[in-house]
């Protein structure tokens, strides 16, 4: 029973196209994230949402637009794809560190390897 799932696992597309990656968590968590792991293996946060509200937006180009239809889903839409967007994108979720119950750990999905040609 997968806790954090992402689709698709692999995505190959051409420059200029628009694509989406979907993420779902069944852990009942309030906070969800998108991370990018580039070719140098740096894992960097892009966005976080808490109960459908954008909390963190890390200097990510406007071509990237997250959408959270409900707190169990956080999708990532990318417009006008560029070669530099090639990376592995990870979705994650957590209970969050604000509020009375704090659990720091974030749970990650399996990743989506995006290749832009």
């Amino acid at each position: 029973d997968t806790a954090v799932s992402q689709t698709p696992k692999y995505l190959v597309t051409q420059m200029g196209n628009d694509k989406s990656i979907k993420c779902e968590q069944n852990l009942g968590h309030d906070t969800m994230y998108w991370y990018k792991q580039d070719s140098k293996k740096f894992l960097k946060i892009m966005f976080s949402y808490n109960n459908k509200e954008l909390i963190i937006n890390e200097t990510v180009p406007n071509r990237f637009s997250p959408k959270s239809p409900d707190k169990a889903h956080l999708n990532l839409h990318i417009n006008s794809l560029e070669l530099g967007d090639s990376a592995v994108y990870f979705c994650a979720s957590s209970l969050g560190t604000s509020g009375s119950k704090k659990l720091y750990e974030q749970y990650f999905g399996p990743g989506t390897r995006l290749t832009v040609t």
Partner: protein
Amino acid sequence: DQQVKQNSPSLSVQEGRISILNCDYTNSMFDYFLWYKKYPAEGPTFLISISSIKDKNEDGRFTVFLNKSAKHLSLHIVPSQPGDSAVYFCAAGIDNTDKLIFGTGTRLQVFP
């Protein structure tokens, strides 16, 4: 500006011995630290965490030590097993921000 650093890209240890993975950080505002393990083609898996008010946390074969004055933490795995072979990331965060800063990872190989 890399706030969390893992200076050893790789480590090779014999099965049964202790593995020690190191992590240094620069931001004294960090309140909590975590270690993740990652297998190829999978997402990072949470291993163990430690709050800045503690200097040690233990969970089975895994122990994390925190030295705040040196801004250094380490993960000890004992005894090491071949299944521990993976990339290990340390991460740090500031309370009430939900934002984790990851190190670049250390590839651990445990050989028989």
